[in-house]
């Protein structure tokens, strides 16, 4: 803090003007979303929250159907699944770098995490083909059975030639979103674990508690506000990612809600991928500023609202936990 008084020197004014630019950018982005989604809003919310969506790429294109409900279900699915995969690993990475570090392990883990965090999402998407061939195909797609045998298996949905879409499914998307957010969440969790006061640790050990007990009862509760913050940012990163979702899940799910609702072997495209597909501009085509574009803007608006809801909720929870921890 250079000068806490309200002395408005020239340099301070210039810096204030510069600092207003990000704010202005944010406001312009939000205004752009609102302005562009006015056409979608004129369809009415029942249309936008129905499960009927049609895509220009599908054979049966019925104009005017922009139901985003399957996309919302897809976002929830993929976020929950990727959090399920990534949270244990990022927690364990943070613990291995701080509490169970063996002395020398802490620095390499930190460096590896910051390097993996810099790998862009397109490369994770590019790597998905290896997981498809090594894991998804042999385990979930019955790749070495012939069709007649698959047809005799009980309990399958009506037969289709590709029971599990071989290179795209929500499961695959969740695996790679988890790989994307593990190196993002682990350093944040590590910071929050390091911020637990050393004195509490020492007090617990000196009272005869084991390190494992200290971890359970002292460190994790103390770091919980930070862990909640890390989880919220990880959720937003997973929910906001376009490329991995579009590559490993697909663009638009146009056959209604998944059945059962938690079926993560289908291509349940999340909001980001659906918005991308609605704009078009893929397959070398021209992006069109039509109703699809407007619906995509509405999907982005939903994501924005979701982001602020998650941030606000995480802030509230953090405040509550802090109060409880101090009391």
């Amino acid at each position, binding site marked *: 803090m*250079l*000068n*806490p008084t309200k002395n408005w020197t020239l*340099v*301070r004014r210039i*810096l*204030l003007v*510069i*600092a*207003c*630019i*990000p704010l202005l*950018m*944010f406001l312009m982005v939000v205004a*752009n*979303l609102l302005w*562009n989604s006015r056409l979608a809003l004129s369809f009415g919310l029942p249309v936008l929250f129905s499960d009927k969506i049609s895509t220009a790429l599908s054979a049966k294109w019925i104009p005017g159907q922009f139901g985003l409900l399957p996309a919302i279900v897809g976002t929830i699915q993929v976020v929950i699944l990727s959090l399920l995969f990534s949270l244990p*690993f990022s927690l*364990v*990475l943070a613990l*291995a770098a701080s509490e*169970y570090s*063996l002395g020398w392990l802490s620095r390499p883990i930190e460096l590896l995490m*910051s*390097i993996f*965090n*810099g790998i*862009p999402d*397109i*490369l994770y998407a*590019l*790597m998905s083909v*290896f997981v498809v061939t090594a*894991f998804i195909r*042999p*385990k*979930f*797609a*019955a790749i070495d059975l012939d069709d007649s045998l698959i047809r005799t*298996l009980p309990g*399958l*949905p009506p037969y289709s030639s590709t029971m*599990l879409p071989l290179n795209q499914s929500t499961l695959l998307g969740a695996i790679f979103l988890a*790989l994307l957010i593990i190196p993002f969440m682990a350093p944040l969790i590590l910071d929050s674990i390091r911020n637990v006061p050393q004195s509490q640790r020492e007090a617990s050990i000196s009272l005869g508690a084991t390190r494992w007990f200290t971890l359970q009862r002292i460190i994790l509760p103390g770091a919980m506000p930070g862990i909640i913050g890390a989880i919220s*940012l990880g959720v937003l990163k997973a929910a906001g*990612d*376009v*490329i991995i979702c579009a*590559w490993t899940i697909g663009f638009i799910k146009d056959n209604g809600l998944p059945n*059962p609702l938690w*079926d993560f*072997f*289908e291509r349940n495209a999340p*909001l980001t991928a659906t918005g991308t597909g609605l*704009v078009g*501009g893929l397959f070398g085509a021209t*992006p069109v*500023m039509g109703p699809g574009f407007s619906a995509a803007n509405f999907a*982005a608006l939903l*994501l924005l609202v979701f982001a602020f809801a998650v941030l606000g909720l995480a802030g509230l929870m953090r405040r509550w936990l802090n109060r409880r921890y101090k009391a």
Partner: protein
Amino acid sequence: MNEVEERSASLHRGEQKVGGATSALSNLFNSIVPLLGLAVAVAAIMLALVALTRNDMEAYPVPLLAAICVVLELQFVDTYRQHSRWDFGLLIVSALAFLLLLALRAMPEYLTGLQLNAVIHRSIFSSIFLLVAALPTLVFSTYYLLDATPAAEDISKYPLILLPVLLIVALYFILLWKMATQGLQAINWSVFITPFKDVSFPVKYYILGDWPAWKTEQIQSIGMGNHILGTGLLILLTSVISMPIGVGTGIFLSEYGEGRLANVIRFITSSLRAISMLIVALAAFSLANAFNNTPLEGMFRGVNFSGWLWYSSTGGSYVSASLALSIVIIPVIVRVTEEGCRSLPQDLREGSLALGVSEETTLRRIVFPWALPNILTGWLLGCAEAAGSVAVLLFVAGRGMYGVGLDKQVTSLAYLIFDIYYGEPTFKGYMQFYQFQAGVLLLIITLLLGILAILSKDWLGKKFRGG
């Protein structure tokens, strides 16, 4: 007889030696069961990991689960023999292993049902079951191998922490390694300098009757030269736009960051990091189309050459793409700059002001140099992000067929990878072979920038701030 004599006499008789041997033998005897458990658990974990990628290991999980079951019961008896207590945790895990064994025996090889859209192989369940049974066995065996002391309880938890770390880091390395080998196995260097072209250009003008006419020719060349140049231009332009704004905002938030407006700016810049890329992509598309039918149209939409005239492209230019990208990158630079400025001791600022130095000079000579390593780190991270960002370019990018420049249609290496996957079939046919090559190049660029960022934070930080 004094003590020394007694000891030497006993040594002479060889009692000590024999006693030592028996105690070692009894130690070995006491640790047979834990060692057995350790061996079984390690074998089970290795089998589980192998079975995650192979379907032909189905003969082994059931015997291993049975072995885990038996070993845990043996350990239960052995614990009573050695420590005189019943450890019912062992029995519970043993029973769990037995139940898992029964479930695995009852399972058909291919599972279906619940209208799920997949035919699930049994081995995925056998891997999970083996891990569930083997990890507690590993912990218990280590605990009893080390004589069940409190220290042993801590050490026995190491596998629980270190095994997942090893697994996940190995997964990253395997994936990166496979991508690198795939990209480098048939590397074609000329692709890096050749621009991609698949366009008809006029090659010869002539007069046909009263009218000018031209003979066109389809010009094709396969490569990613313009994509690489475009990545460079994108990085350059984005840093030119976002560095002053980011650094200025960071210094403002750190040095004058009190009051309601500053808090709002801080909140907005931190939440800009968390917004979806789709929002930024739509902003880029709107920005590219914001100046339609004005003189600025060409600058923002990008121009293409159709053979005889330049016309607006369907996407956006490097200018609009960089402006949209800076929405993503400014928050990174702001955060890092603010961190750097905040780490400056307050004494230095006050000392400078007390010597009569103006605020401006203090900022320029004290605060800015102090934050310089952080600013450099933020810049490098921002460059890496700009190089790897595809989503922002998704609605505006083209294929760089008409050159690279401020008002040409934007393209980048990262977009090329996505374009090869989802582009039209002819483009895919031309470029599919070079997808992993482009991926490896992008990986090298981003890793280089990331490692430089780490180095600049560590080394320059030490150099500038005296350790």
